[in-house]
């Protein structure tokens, strides 16, 4: 199933690239213009994605695994159990990235490490304390290393 979805997305992508490749300014270089190479690649990707979709549909029809064996809700429940943490982690990571500019590197990194650590591990006192200590050491270590050795300026945010 997933392959078919990915195939469709890739077809969309290749169509997008293909139809946006036409109107680049032509230079006096008479032959290949900036759009022709992407067009070639997009066309190939389109063909192969189509092949993938066909192949997957054929196997799907052969194995006849259309329905959900134990009902749709059960399927969803299982998926949710398996991928719950992945989704939560993505949300936390996304929030962390967005907050970098607002809260600054130090504050948001400390919060992120603690939040992610508690999310994955058990919520026990010992665990929370360890992860807090680690997050402080890590954040300041990274910050000072990059600021002083590589002269990178991290976003400071509103607090500093």
């Amino acid at each position, binding site marked *: 199933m997933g392959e078919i979805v990915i195939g469709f997305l890739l077809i969309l992508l290749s169509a997008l690239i293909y139809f946006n490749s036409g109107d680049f300014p032509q230079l006096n270089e008479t032959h290949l213009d900036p759009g022709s190479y992407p067009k070639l690649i997009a066309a190939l990707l389109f063909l192969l994605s189509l092949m993938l979709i066909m192949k997957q549909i054929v196997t799907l029809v052969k194995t006849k695994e259309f329905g959900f064996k134990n009902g749709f809700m059960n399927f969803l429940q299982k998926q949710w159990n398996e991928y719950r943490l992945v989704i939560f982690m993505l949300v936390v*990571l996304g929030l962390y990235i967005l907050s970098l500019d607002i809260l600054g590197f130090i504050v948001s990194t400390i919060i992120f490490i603690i939040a992610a650590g508690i999310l*994955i591990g058990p919520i026990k006192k010992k665990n929370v304390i360890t992860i807090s200590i680690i997050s402080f050491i890590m954040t300041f270590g990274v910050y000072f290393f990059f600021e002083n050795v590589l002269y990178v300026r991290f976003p400071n945010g509103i607090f500093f």
Partner: protein
Amino acid sequence: MTDLFVLGVSEIFQIDILIVILLGVIAGILAGLIPGFTVTMAIVLTLPLTFGMEPIMGVAAMIGVLVGGMSGGLITAALLGIPGTPSAVATTFDAYPMSRKGQPGKALSLGIWASFLSSIVSLVILIAIAPQIANLALEFGPWEMFSLIIAALTIIASVTGESILKGLIAGLFGLLIATVGADPIAGITRFTFDIGVLRAGIPFLVVLIGMFAISRLMNSVERTELNKDVQQKQEDKIKGMQFVLKPKETFLSVIRKPVNLIRSSAIGAIIGAIPGAGGSIANIIAYDQAKKWSKESEKFGKGHDEGVVASEAGNNSTVGGDLIPTIALGIPGSAVTAVLLSALMVHGINPGPLLITNEPNLVGGMFLAFLVASFFMLITQFLGIRLFVRVTEVPTQYLVPLIMVLCVTGTFVLNNRITDIYLLFVIGIVGYLFTKYKFALAPIIIGVILGPIAEVNLRRAYMADPDWTLFLSRPISLVFLILAVLSIGFTIWQSRRMKKREV
């Protein structure tokens, strides 16, 4: 060749570079050791640290990580029967039974020696072959370069991943990603769709970190993965680990069977040189061949020394093999060497057939760094193995957030752009979905790094002479194209045959 070496000596034998290599080796061993943390991830995360260094120092650090990482998987493979990296799978076949029989020290020592000696063998192969290939490649015109890239990509697509169709799709996807941003000849901005984030293109390293680190981390917090992890750690605690290393005896026993060592190293080096194929394939093939050729093949799988030696020699020698196309042609054979090349590019050094001529001290330095790293690997493994074993006990909840922070910082440090981190997030999700549905990531990465080179050469070829048939009438170019077709044909034939067997 000797002058390359002499230049290398003067570059590498400086105290700071030696320290950096040592640190790299240790980091690599740790990365190879922790299940779920791959060598590729380690080398990707080393890269931002090397921006402030001299090019030679940065590359030396990475080679250290690479050599260390290849031998790191040995420890868990031998003691727990769990390969720390995919390239140590065959090591579990014989090293684990050996340590169950009460000889964990022997298994480890054998593995360490095999890793070290095979690295040396593959270094010799590398030094002997790379300059010749580079000389040959100097004759290449844009037609040959384009066909070479086509061949490299199709070979990568056919050896990695589940099916060749998915591999090719992944490779093309990588090529498409690389077209975003300024076009390499005229500098016209393409496919930004008026999104500011995309105007500078999608940097190669962001793709790399997103695909290999973020998506891997996401994978490791899946419920079943987490449960597996907990189980493993409990098993670790049950076994009190007591072992005595026997460096001298095992050295002799490896040396006494030189054919096995050299055969396995040569297999590793050749497989390493094929784009896309690396340690994970080499160790199994080397093991298999050793079993076929051995006089005592019935002992394999029950804790036989030759099995341990073959597998570890097979995976460590891929490093030297992998460096052959990287140095001689500027075509990386794996994600790891792709990072190595991009480290050079960050410093303004253009990889390609001219690298040996233009930067002989750098290439010599790379050779020597490889040698030094192998020595360091030998020493640190023998001295520090007891400490390394402890590292497998670090729980996931500490590891995952820390590595994520390193990914984000590394991405930011690259260009000092917050927008790169947004890209990282998106690419991480894309990479995760791709791995979930068994698309190989290596073709994407190689596609992204080779994409601009392919385009430049295609357009140059066309500018020089708008005759398409030149790709087919120039002999070397034709050979590469035939190779590409053959690799696709062979893979399809092989998978058909496998299917028939199953039925």
